[in-house]
């Protein structure tokens, strides 16, 4: 159903801040022929009187989409969305063009000149708005149990919380009784035996609950589905796969501690690890006498030392309470968190626990029966006497144990091996309801009590989801759509998706078309720009809209102007911040804001050149740590790189396109970047408008649409879990040359197609036309004919006459 598009344009004077710099009446004049229904200029559209005036206009004119030429969309859009909601204007129908920060405040040019730039930016926005697709979000059911996987202790708290609220859950755990779990507690939580009593109570409640099913852990074969309908495949000992279904998932993963290496200290059984000690505690045969906990291992960092000191303190407390014949002392470096509070000190004194801080600069010395250390209080060397010396353990790499599970989850190891859920840096409205919860010490060293809190929090999140579903508010936002006819099931999108929004497919299902879990999708759009078959479309943020915008803008730009793409984070923010800080930069740059540079389809870049733009600049977040979509900016880099290669293949200057990186708080860098890029482009003539160049650019554009090229671009960036990425220059030259080869071939193919579309040609004529040696063309032509993409239509001068179409 196609309805008439009725777009309203509102321009803001911003109390003179815009109107004094930009000739707004002229902007209106310039936009008269643009696709708009209503155009008005207001002093402050954002203030209540302005919103009232806009609402009136919307109703009187029957407007269904809006473009506001004012200031930052990041800051102001919500205000308009909320203010105009009573007039039926949903947020996605509002587009903002930043006249203040991208035009008025940053250029010193005459108002008429700025009016032209403003009109170009607005025309782009209008073109994009015209392709807007209204949609209705659908609400989702939320039934079935919660699946608690990973085997971490916190899962039991989640289960208890869920059971108390009447929700079923299935826990996959290593041990099948509370006692077994407690016996092994110190493998993951050293020093937490103190809390065994509390934990036992908790575990018993869980095991006794009719709403909780405890199953034994098994390797994860697959995890597919989405909110309200997750399916988890578990490989059974007999090789079969059991499928569990659930509404949501809680991943509870704990980090294990390895026993410290104490062999080199010597001393036989008198020197032991904390694990040994805790094993003894489980068995109940601890050696009586003076026990010294020696907290050391500075090379593992303060956090580990803190943890060890705390564990030692707690074990001492446990020993003092339950085994009075043991006299514990904790010797810890003065830089860690002990002692805690006055109350703790009193407790320690009451139990006769020694707490001795040592100055970390001077290493304590272990002797037979003694440990000497320097006290920071008096700088004097002191000694403690021991019968047993206990050395705390060290954390192990949490990710290595969970590879099979992590493959299916948007959980990645960060620096240092700890695990973290991926999307954490979006606007809340971009983050769909969390349906996959992650708890446990694998996310960061923490003690049992913290982990239990995390488990509770996860359960609470899940219950909120259920509550939302009950009220019909659990809606699928419909962000990304996969065209099932175009999708070939290659799975590249799944590989690169940072948020897990594109579904996994069960192993061995063959080329199955992908679907999306819009509940996890954050709408970054890298997948759409990467898809070799262009089967993915981000709703109301589509490549088609961007194309239209680029075309509309270029048609209003001069031949010296440059197109700029900024990502919605570092790029956009720093560009706007430049205005806030009163910086200026050349007027030639015409900025388009996108979610992430990774969402820019490679063909957009070529399209811009095809439409005659002189140059392109892209500004995104600093790669590897700042990109909000993990590797979006890296994907973009490969596309820019390909574009450069293609430009040079076509005999054009590589430097017509450039990419740079800025952080939100680096407006100066942004301004310098623009200046520098535009300065470089000033040396170049405008893009030639002759037929030959156009034909070449057409071919480049066609090349960017070729699945093979897109596949190579998409796979150039491998999944981030792979160790060799990023930074390693391994095989860099070879890989780049491979890409160049592919581009060259595909570029040639594109040119061949272009030539053959006009008329059938034989290889020598084709060679002359494309200025390529025949011997380069012949194998390509033969391959294409073999693939059936071109056909031999006859013979001419002993050469085959190739033409488009099938034989």
């Amino acid at each position, binding site marked *: 159903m196609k309805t008439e598009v009725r777009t309203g344009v509102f321009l803001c004077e911003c*109390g003179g801040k815009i109107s004094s710099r930009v000739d707004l009446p002229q902007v209106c004049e310039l936009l008269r022929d643009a696709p708009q229904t209503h155009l008005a200029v207001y*002093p*402050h559209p*954002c*203030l*209540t*009187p*302005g919103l*009232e005036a806009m609402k009136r206009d919307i109703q009187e004119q029957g407007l269904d989409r809006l473009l506001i030429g004012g200031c*930052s969309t*990041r*800051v*102001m859009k*919500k*205000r308009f969305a909320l203010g105009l909601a009573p007039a039926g204007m949903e947020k996605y129908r509002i587009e903002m063009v930043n006249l203040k920060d991208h035009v008025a405040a940053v250029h010193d040019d005459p108002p008429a000149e700025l009016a032209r730039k403003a009109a170009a930016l607005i025309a782009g926005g209008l073109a994009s708005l015209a392709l807007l697709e209204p949609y209705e979000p659908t609400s989702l059911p939320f039934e079935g149990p919660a699946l608690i996987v990973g085997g971490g202790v916190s899962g039991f708290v989640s289960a208890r919380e869920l059971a108390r609220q009447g929700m079923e859950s299935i826990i996959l755990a290593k041990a099948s009784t509370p006692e077994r779990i407690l016996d092994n507690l110190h493998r993951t939580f050293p020093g937490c035996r103190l809390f065994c009593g509390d934990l036992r109570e908790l575990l018993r409640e869980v095991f006794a609950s009719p709403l909780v099913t405890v199953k034994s852990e098994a390797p994860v074969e697959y995890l597919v589905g989405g909110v309200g309908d997750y399916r988890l495949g578990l490989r059974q000992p007999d090789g079969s796969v059991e499928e569990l279904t659930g509404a949501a998932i809680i991943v509870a993963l704990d980090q294990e501690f390895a026993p410290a290496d104490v062999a080199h200290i010597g001393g036989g059984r008198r020197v032991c690890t904390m694990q040994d000690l805790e094993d003894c505690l489980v068995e109940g045969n601890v050696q009586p006498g003076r026990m010294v906990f020696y907290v050391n291992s500075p090379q593992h960092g303060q956090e580990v030392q803190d943890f060890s000191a705390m564990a030692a303190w707690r074990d001492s407390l446990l020993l003092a309470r339950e085994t009075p014949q043991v006299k514990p002392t904790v010797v810890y470096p003065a830089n860690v968190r002990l002692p805690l509070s006055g109350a703790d000190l009193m407790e320690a004194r009451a139990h006769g626990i020694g707490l001795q801080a040592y100055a970390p600069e001077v290493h304590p010395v272990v002797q037979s029966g003694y440990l000497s250390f320097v006290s920071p209080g008096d700088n004097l060397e002191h000694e403690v006497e021991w019968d047993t010396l206990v050395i705390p353990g060290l954390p192990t790499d949490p990710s290595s144990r969970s590879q099979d599970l992590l493959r299916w989850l948007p959980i990645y190891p960060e620096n240092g091996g700890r695990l973290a859920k991926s999307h*954490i*840096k*979006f*606007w*809340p*409205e971009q983050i769909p309801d969390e349906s996959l919860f992650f708890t446990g010490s694998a996310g960061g060293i923490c003690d049992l009590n913290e982990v239990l809190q995390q488990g509770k929090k996860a359960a609470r999140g899940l219950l909120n989801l259920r509550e939302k579903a009950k009220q019909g508010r659990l809606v699928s936002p419909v962000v990304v759509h996969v065209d099932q006819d175009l999708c070939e099931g290659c799975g590249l999108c799944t590989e690169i998706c940072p948020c897990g929004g594109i579904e996994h497919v069960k192993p061995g299902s063959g080329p199955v078309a992908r679907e999306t879990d819009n509940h996890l999708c954050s709408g970054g759009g890298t997948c759409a720009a990467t898809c070799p078959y262009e089967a993915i479309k981000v709703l109301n943020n589509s490549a088609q809209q961007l194309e239209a915008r680029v075309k509309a803008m270029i048609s209003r730009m001069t031949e010296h102007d440059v197109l700029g793409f900024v990502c919605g*984070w570092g790029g956009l*923010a*720093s560009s*706007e*911040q430049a205005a*806030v800080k*009163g910086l200026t930069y050349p007027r030639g740059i015409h900025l388009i804001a996108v979610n992430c540079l990774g969402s820019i389809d490679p063909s957009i870049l070529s399209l811009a050149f095809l439409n005659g733009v002189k140059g392109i600049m892209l500004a995104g977040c600093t790669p590897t740590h*700042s990109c*909000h979509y993990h590797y979006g900016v890296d994907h973009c880099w490969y596309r820019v790189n390909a574009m450069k290669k293609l430009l040079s293949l076509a005999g054009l200057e590589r430097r017509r396109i450039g990419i740079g990186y800025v*952080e*939100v*708080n680096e407006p100066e860098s942004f301004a310098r970047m623009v200046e520098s890029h535009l300065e470089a482009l000033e040396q170049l003539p405008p893009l030639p408008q002759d037929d030959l160049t156009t034909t070449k650019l057409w071919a480049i554009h066609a090349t960017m649409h070729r699945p093979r090229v897109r596949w190579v671009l998409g796979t150039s960036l491998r999944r981030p879990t792979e160790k060799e990425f990023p930074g390693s220059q391994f095989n860099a030259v070879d890989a780049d040359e491979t890409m160049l080869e592919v581009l060259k071939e595909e570029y040639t193919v594109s040119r061949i197609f272009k030539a053959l579309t006009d008329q059938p040609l034989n290889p020598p004529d084709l060679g002359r036309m494309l200025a390529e040696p025949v011997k380069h063309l012949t194998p390509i032509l033969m391959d294409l004919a073999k693939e059936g993409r071109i056909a031999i239509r006859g013979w001419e001068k002993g050469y085959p006459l190739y033409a488009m179409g099938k034989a």
Partner: protein
Amino acid sequence: MVTFTINGKEVQGQKDWTILDVARWEGIPIPTLCHHPAVEPYGACRLCVVEVDEGRRTRIVISCMYPVKEGIKVRTDTPRVQNVRRWIMQLLLDESPASSYLKELAKSFDVKPSRFQKAGVSFACHLCGLCVRACQEVVGIQALTFSNRGLKKEIASPLQMGSKDCISCGNCLYVCPSLGMEQLYARMRA
């Protein structure tokens, strides 16, 4: 619609509009610091004070929050109003001499640094709360918050750790009228 006057000029507004809304719409200048259209008015800086005659009562109110009423007489430039504004400018300028926004604004008030000016202070936060409010109201998270109170009041991230909630969207920077947020930002993200 209610009708009232600002500096003698008859103006109109709706019941829930503020004096500042109407003044801005009519192009009558009123200085502000903690006001930003993206967030709810907060009423902290008090720069936007105006004098209002309402019946027999005359009082100083802040125009960013005072709802318009039928028949009130608003004056934006009386000696009382000037005294409040000048003092606020004076106090701010002495507190954070590095703020460029302030220096600009202070010129129009003919306010110069006094003997109480803090020497060697480059930090320029006025605690207008725009960053906190933008983070909360616009972005929808609370990566920033006020901490402490009174003279010790400051903008901080919870538990004084680099905030995990921060999405580095930079909205706080955009709304900040001074350099304060820029100086804080690096600290927050650490």
